[in-house]
């Protein structure tokens, strides 16, 4: 169970980055760390000791122990969508810097350009 707690700790370190940090790029990095933590927690729940990858090949006996394939199916698309959202937010950050000249969130709020 400590493995689950470490994955949750990784998620909360990312959440700390999103809430507390003042630089825009640190907020983007915090978001990416949150996404890694969630994917890791999903795949950790589905692991079973002594199981192999859930793919049949020729010559495998009928009663082979396999790990849980459902969390892997859910995480597979989540990783690709995570790339799309991280790229989108990084593009937003570059646009904001071009318009305001500053990456500090408090200074941007004061400028109101």
């Amino acid at each position: 169970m400590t493995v689950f707690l470490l994955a949750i700790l990784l998620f909360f370190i990312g959440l700390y980055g999103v809430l507390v940090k003042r630089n825009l790029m640190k907020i983007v990095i915090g978001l990416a760390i949150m996404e890694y933590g969630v994917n890791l927690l999903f795949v950790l729940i589905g692991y079973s000791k002594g199981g192999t990858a859930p793919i049949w090949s020729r010559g495998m006996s009928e009663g082979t122990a396999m790990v849980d394939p459902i969390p892997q199916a859910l995480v597979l698309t989540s990783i690709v969508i995570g790339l799309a959202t991280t790229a989108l937010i990084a593009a937003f950050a570059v646009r904001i810097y071009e318009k305001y000249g500053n990456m500090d969130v408090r200074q941007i709020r004061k400028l109101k350009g």
Partner: protein
Amino acid sequence: MITLLFLLLGIMILGAIIALESRDLLSSIICLGIIGYSLTIIFVILQAPDLAIVQIIIETMTLVILIAAVLKTDREDTTETFGWRKMLIWGFGLVVIFLVMMAAVRAYRHLPAFASPSLQIAAYYIDQGLALTGAANIVAAIILDFRGYDTLGEATVLFTAVVGTMTVLRKTGRKEK
């Protein structure tokens, strides 16, 4: 195998803390790369080859995009100061994380322990998957036959994210000063 898992998790948490507290932004992004590639090794240890393939390529692309974004903006984070305010924030953060961990321990006590899941629905998929769908890859059979509707939703979300990027970043035709 379990000790390697703990070692990699420790490296990931240490890398996450360094990535968020570093003053140089390129070092932060390299630490993000450490987290991503350690996650690839963890996926291989946890017997998930599909995820390892996708994660390593996506991690490389994310690093390139973030490094390009950092090179176009400030390279140094000037808001990081080390004073009593930061110690106060760290203390408060530690208290909040401790409370959340207490709640998580109470919630996760009822799950089966690590490396022994209950496998109730998945037993049906593993036993009948090859006979019902004819696909040897059970993960592909799940995402395209047993749960194909979810995959339609995920493909739509990816499509929406790409269309959103293209809408926000197109040339507006306005004169910049």
